[in-house]
């Protein structure tokens, strides 16, 4: 496929919500390894909010859908991840006004914008062992595949996000609750990076279909 259509976008969000609900115990357990053990429960509230937003959406444009998803997440998840995931979708929505499809180039611009906003909000960089470590390599792949069909670029982004998440197991946390037990954290994948790689995996599946 050359573009991500509005129905695919809905399929993506719906799949992400389901995957988060399915994986919610694993995300809690990953968070528990260094943090307070509720990343899965937090995002599960977000998943429910996404489902509500999808049910209420009138199929106007990409911006309207993503904006309502972003607001729903910001105002239901709480914690660091709620502000960050909410900001992600709100920034994406800024690029969807009047649009019912996105090229890879559009996706790259939107996710790149979101990445910058999230780093600023969280006061983090790549390498601090956060969800940024899954998001940043995915954005890099979108950049490399800027002119490729979305199915191809999103598959590459999903692989990069998954690999980035895996690599967090070797990183020393420098932000979020994980950093508190820094000296004793090693070996576990960062919870937020794990959920972020679910987001790109769902995107890849939605664009293949």
């Amino acid at each position, binding site marked *: 496929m050359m573009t991500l259509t509005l129905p695919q976008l809905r399929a993506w969000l719906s799949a992400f919500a389901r995957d988060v609900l399915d994986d919610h*115990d694993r995300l*809690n*357990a990953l968070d*528990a390894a*260094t*943090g*307070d*053990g*509720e990343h899965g*429960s*937090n995002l599960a*509230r977000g998943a429910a909010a996404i489902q509500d937003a999808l049910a209420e959406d009138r199929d106007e444009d990409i911006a309207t859908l993503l904006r309502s998803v972003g607001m729903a997440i*910001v*105002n*239901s*998840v*709480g*914690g*660091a*991840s*709620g*502000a*960050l995931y*909410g*900001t992600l979708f709100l920034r994406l929505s800024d690029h969807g006004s009047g649009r019912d499809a996105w090229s890879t180039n559009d996706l790259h611009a939107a996710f790149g914008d979101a990445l910058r906003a999230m780093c600023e*909000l*969280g*006061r983090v960089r790549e390498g601090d062992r956060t969800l940024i470590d899954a998001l940043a390599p995915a954005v890099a792949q979108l950049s490399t595949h800027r002119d490729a069909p979305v199915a191809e670029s999103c598959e590459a982004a999903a692989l990069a996000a998954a690999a980035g998440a895996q690599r967090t197991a070797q990183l020393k946390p*420098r*932000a*979020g*609750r994980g*950093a*508190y*037990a*820094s*000296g*004793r954290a090693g070996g576990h994948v960062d919870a937020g990076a794990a959920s972020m790689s679910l987001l790109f995996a769902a995107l890849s599946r939605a664009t293949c279909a």
Partner: protein
Amino acid sequence: MQKFMRTADTAVSDYLHGLARAHPDLIRYDPERGIVVRAEAGAPKVAIVSGGGSGCEPLHTGFVGQGMLDAACPGSVFSSPVPRQIVAATQTVDQGHGVLYVVTNYGGEIMNFGLAGEILGREGHEIEKVVVDDDVALDGDLRHLRRGMGATVLVEKLAGAAAESGAPLDEVAAVARRTVQRSRTFAVALGPCVHPSTGSPAFELPAGQMEVGVGLGGDRGLSREPLPPADAVAEALVERAVAELSISDGARVIVLLSGLGGTPELELVGLFGHVHTALERRGAAVERSLVGNYVTSLESPGAQLTVLHTDDELTRYWDAPVRTRALRWGAPA
């Protein structure tokens, strides 16, 4: 899971409903908007708003009332509140004299109060923020991550008293910042808490061990050491808490020794006696003190020591009347 609750999802709202029923004279709970506000606004003044993850009660909801908070925004257990709550609280309690946010230095709290502040700034609310980061456990390249712990109570009390005295927003904020600068906290846990959503202990701690330098919410500490006798625990708490304060002979201090939720009064008050001795040994004069469960982590056994290097103004604000669920003095009824 050994907990009084209906479901993990209703634990916080059930708490808030119960709180409103226990203290109809002090607070109102708005379930729609998820906020707790003072039952009576009182005379116009700077409003104080705080909020944070639930599970640390009485923080912050138990400090809403005369002389402390005007509103509290409780999040889910160990998760910060969301901007909508903070926006609603601000709109409800801003009497036109400005609003002070007391924000603990956790990513979630910082970001969500930040987002709310951005929204509200555009609506014309005058907002100041004070970030509480009194936890000395983190240092070096982790210093920016110092958590907001017991000093949050002191900030809410002293800023609340300043606001009640009629001081303008910048002065109230200055009192709050001075309190943060002059306070330090160190905490130890003798066991984990159990998050209601997961039902499993936040960490495993072998008997006879103590987790040193913990935060709230079941955060692990910096290290794990054999649990020494209580006087040695007190010595360690005091040593770490005062290291960055200029405590020399005659230094006046206000001391908060808070249990983490599961430590019985017998032990906590006993520990306080040793803390008192250790402080006096360093020449500090313990001018005021507060011992009990004030900033907790559900049922965690443990304690945190907060020391505030006080002065005339701060002690005067400390003594000012307060009437909330958890702090109450100087004010009738």
